[in-house]
């Protein structure tokens, strides 16, 4: 995702401060889809993800002055931070939150081939892979977002999680293996039915 240029973003934030609703609309149009993708990797439920995105931009409209326009943080990262806090609040409240068990796919087979993707049409594969990603533990889902959606550098991902590079690499390694295992199971099941 391309960030809005700082002068343009600064203008929009100033206009929000003056109560111009069109400015928040401009920011929303630019950032809401990638933010939705991020939240969707955290909560694996479309309707909850939409609500979190809504709440996040509502917070931006009220607390836009908290973003340090001259600082090093990217605006999209700041948005994701707000959204993640809202997800955490939702998780603590125990309401409307769906998550898979952490133990799902913790034991995975390495017997499956890597060329499973050839068995599906592109759109089928995307849907199936997304279903498999949903079954990953949250840290692996989130790492998947930063690396494959945001195309982030490995050092930046580690910084984002405030953890070591090794931990990130391990999360991604396990995530990819589990997705392959998930696809392999579906493929076996499909082959048996045939």
């Amino acid at each position, binding site marked *: 995702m391309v960030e809005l240029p700082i002068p343009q973003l600064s203008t929009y934030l100033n206009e929000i401060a003056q*109560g111009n*609703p069109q400015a*928040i*609309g401009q920011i*929303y*149009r*630019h950032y*809401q*889809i*990638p933010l*939705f*993708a991020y939240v*969707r*990797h955290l909560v694996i439920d479309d309707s909850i993800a*939409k609500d979190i*995105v*809504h709440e996040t*931009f*509502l917070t931006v*409209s*009220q607390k836009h002055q908290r973003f340090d326009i001259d600082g090093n943080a990217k605006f999209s990262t700041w948005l994701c931070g707000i959204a993640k806090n809202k997800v955490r609040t939702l998780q603590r409240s125990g309401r409307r939150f769906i998550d898979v068990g952490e133990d799902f796919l913790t034991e995975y087979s390495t017997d499956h*081939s*890597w*060329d*499973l*993707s050839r068995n599906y049409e*592109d759109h089928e*594969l*995307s849907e199936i*892979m*997304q279903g498999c*990603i949903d079954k990953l533990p949250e840290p692996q889902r989130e790492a*998947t*977002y930063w*690396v*494959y*959606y945001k*195309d*982030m*550098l*490995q050092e930046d991902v580690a910084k984002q999680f405030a953890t070591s590079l090794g931990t990130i*690499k*391990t999360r*991604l*390694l396990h995530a*990819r293996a589990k*997705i*392959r295992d998930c696809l392999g199971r579906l493929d076996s099941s499909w082959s048996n039915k045939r």
Partner: protein
Amino acid sequence: MIDASDLLRFREELPFYVNGTSGAESKAFMSECLNKQPDLQAEVEFTQALRSSVKLVGANRREDEGLDRLLQAIEAQQAKTFTYRWKRFLESCSDWGLSPAFAAMAFIAVVQSVILWQSHITGDTLTNAAQYRSMSETVSAADMKLTINPDIGFGNLVVLLRQVGAHIVYGPSESGELWIALDDHSQLKTIAKQLRETPGIIDVIEVGQP
């Protein structure tokens, strides 16, 4: 074939090779691995498919999807703030062709009116009592006019009027006249006679409206 440690490194660096953020050294390493073990290309393609799938999350959403809901929520919140109400007031004044200075004066006048009204409706007991005393009262019709001897004390006059069932409805005038009404009008002649015989009452005249 590559050894186990190189295979592990290949797999750890693969996500960043696929997302295009690998450094030159890492890229060279990955290319070398792929040359030595071509079947690793399947892992690269799998990871590319994974990246493509992740990038499709939310891709079917319109860029302004949910924006109307957001703007309505913001509008509802702003409507609760003083700043927003003030801004709307100024905009309304502008729409009516009024200058900001006039708008400010009008606003101050409104605020002052509200303050005065508040003090009016929330006065303390003494204030309320004073307001009650100063209220005008409809003057009922008088039955008779009394000319009072200036020597009669006010207390004696009050006792006398209560005894005959009368109350003052007008006066005293400069010449010491009082207009009184009777509780029981049928006793007018009797009471008039009684008052004429009372010391301190110089004259009694039966009258209508003062």
